[in-house]
């Protein structure tokens, strides 16, 4: 049995994307900046891909800037809005405690450069409250950045409501949509989004390519200086095969979205129900406002890395927010942000379902997780203390 259940980490490339890329590499080797025919044909391919991506988000093609991925797009959007704000004497940024590190580390850097950053509470259910965004806005606020859906616990944020608040208050709004672009229907105009970051490999496209949507007229500075590619906002010869693969994958994902989400939600809810049967376990994040394939649990008395390794032995690829998998002593900042204490956060498991997963996979995963959790608890001194009543159960 081989079950890939880590679609939030990356996804297998779709056949359509591989074919589009292969064709592009074989036939369109021209440089889109060259004036002769093969160059101009490559330029046409590039612009067709841009138009396809824009159409999926209800954006204009000229508002899509291709990047090396989600992290670059996050960095560029945040830095652009912040530096434009600073020029007007606005040095306050609002974000949340459970953003991706591409956002949090950029904000840390801006703090060192004199910006003030407010990180909003994401509450126990892992959902930001729009009224708290509104309350945090000050005259000197230049940017609000809130992720569309969380990468660990899959909670989907009230982006439309936050967008409306920001637009009404005249504050720029960025959303890191790396987990949401593809699986969720996004309308950047209706949702009042000024900047949106996305990454190709999260929706069955290639790695190393993503895009930034930047609404017409918003500040945008290049992170990489050089030639005039991407209207001077991202120098360097375009990664044409990657861009073509990204657009083919996004188009395909968008076309299958409704049916696939309906299918995945059923699998997800069955997985949540099955894992809930494990005593002293708890689902992380809101049960309903979550991505169709995301399941994230904490199990008391065990540590996440050993859980992952044993699941791997059973053919299941999954992920954890334990410190040992993060390479630091602290467990996932996301789990801490929703109020899980360290002891419990170490025993977390993220399973993210996707295109290839079946109902049979879900039953196998439930059986395997039950078995492994019970095995590890069998020789865990923490579990012994919990069961003997020496320390109280938290879940």
């Amino acid at each position, binding site marked *: 049995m081989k079950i890939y259940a880590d679609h939030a980490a990356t996804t297998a490339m779709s056949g359509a994307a591989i074919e589009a890329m292969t064709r592009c590499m074989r036939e369109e080797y021209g440089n889109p900046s060259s004036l002769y025919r093969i160059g101009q044909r490559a330029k046409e391919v590039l612009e067709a891909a841009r138009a396809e991506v824009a159409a999926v988000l209800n954006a204009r093609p000229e508002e899509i800037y291709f990047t090396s991925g989600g992290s670059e797009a996050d960095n560029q959007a945040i830095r652009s809005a912040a530096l434009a704000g600073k020029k007007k004497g606005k040095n306050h940024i609002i974000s949340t405690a459970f953003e991706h590190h591409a956002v949090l580390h950029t904000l840390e850097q801006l703090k060192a450069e004199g910006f003030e950053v407010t990180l909003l509470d994401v509450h126990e259910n892992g959902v930001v409250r729009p009224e708290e965004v509104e309350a945090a806005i000050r005259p000197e606020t230049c940017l609000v950045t809130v992720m569309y859906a969380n990468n660990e616990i899959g909670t989907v944020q009230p982006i439309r409501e936050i967008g409306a608040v920001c637009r009404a208050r005249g504050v720029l709004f960025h959303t890191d949509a790396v987990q949401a672009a593809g699986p969720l229907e996004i309308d950047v105009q209706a949702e009042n989004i000024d900047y949106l970051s996305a990454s190709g490999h999260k929706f069955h496209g290639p790695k190393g390519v993503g895009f930034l949507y930047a609404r017409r007229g918003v500040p945008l500075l290049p992170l990489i200086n050089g030639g005039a590619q991407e209207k001077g906002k991202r120098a360097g010869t375009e990664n044409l095969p990657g861009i073509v693969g990204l657009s083919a994958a996004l188009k395909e994902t968008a076309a299958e979205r409704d049916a696939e989400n309906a299918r995945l939600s059923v699998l997800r809810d069955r997985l949540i129900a099955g894992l809930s049967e494990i005593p002293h376990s708890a689902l992380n994040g809101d049960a309903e406002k979550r991505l169709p394939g995301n399941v994230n649990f904490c199990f008391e*008395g*065990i*540590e*996440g*890395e*050993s859980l992952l*390794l*044993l699941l791997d*032995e059973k053919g299941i690829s999954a992920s954890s927010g*334990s*410190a*040992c998998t993060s*390479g630091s*002593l602290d*467990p996932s900042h996301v789990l801490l942000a929703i109020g899980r*204490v*360290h*002891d419990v956060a*170490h025993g977390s498991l993220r399973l993210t379902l996707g295109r290839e997963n079946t109902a049979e996979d879900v039953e196998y995963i439930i059986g395997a997780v039950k078995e492994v959790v019970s095995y590890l608890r069998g*020789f*865990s*001194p*923490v*579990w*012994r203390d919990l069961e003997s009543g020496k320390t109280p159960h938290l879940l």
Partner: protein
Amino acid sequence: MALYSEKVMDHFLHPRNVGVIEDANAIGEVGNAKCGDIMKMYLKIEDDIVKDVKFETFGCGSAIASSSMATEMIKGKPLSEVANLTNKAVTEALDGLPAHKIHCSVLAEEAIHSALEDYRRRQEEA
């Protein structure tokens, strides 16, 4: 390259000396759940020799493997030898650990030393 050596994976997947010794006369517990690692060693010492040893561990793959390896290294050994067990020896016996996992072998050394201290305390009391 895999995260762990074959030796580590062997001891993680098939840990030796797992469990509890009900009439242990030396018990050592180190680490804390906050940091994600707790090791508990149960020793049965007779005539200054570790007659039996068992462990319980809450922790990652290398913590479990380090506990397992350490118990194997002290079982049947005289206390004079056990007292000299170092984390370096445990790490070497496991064919190495990733740099950020060395603390797991340190915990194993500390758990054994903590058990020996417990033994001495009990001897003094008796």
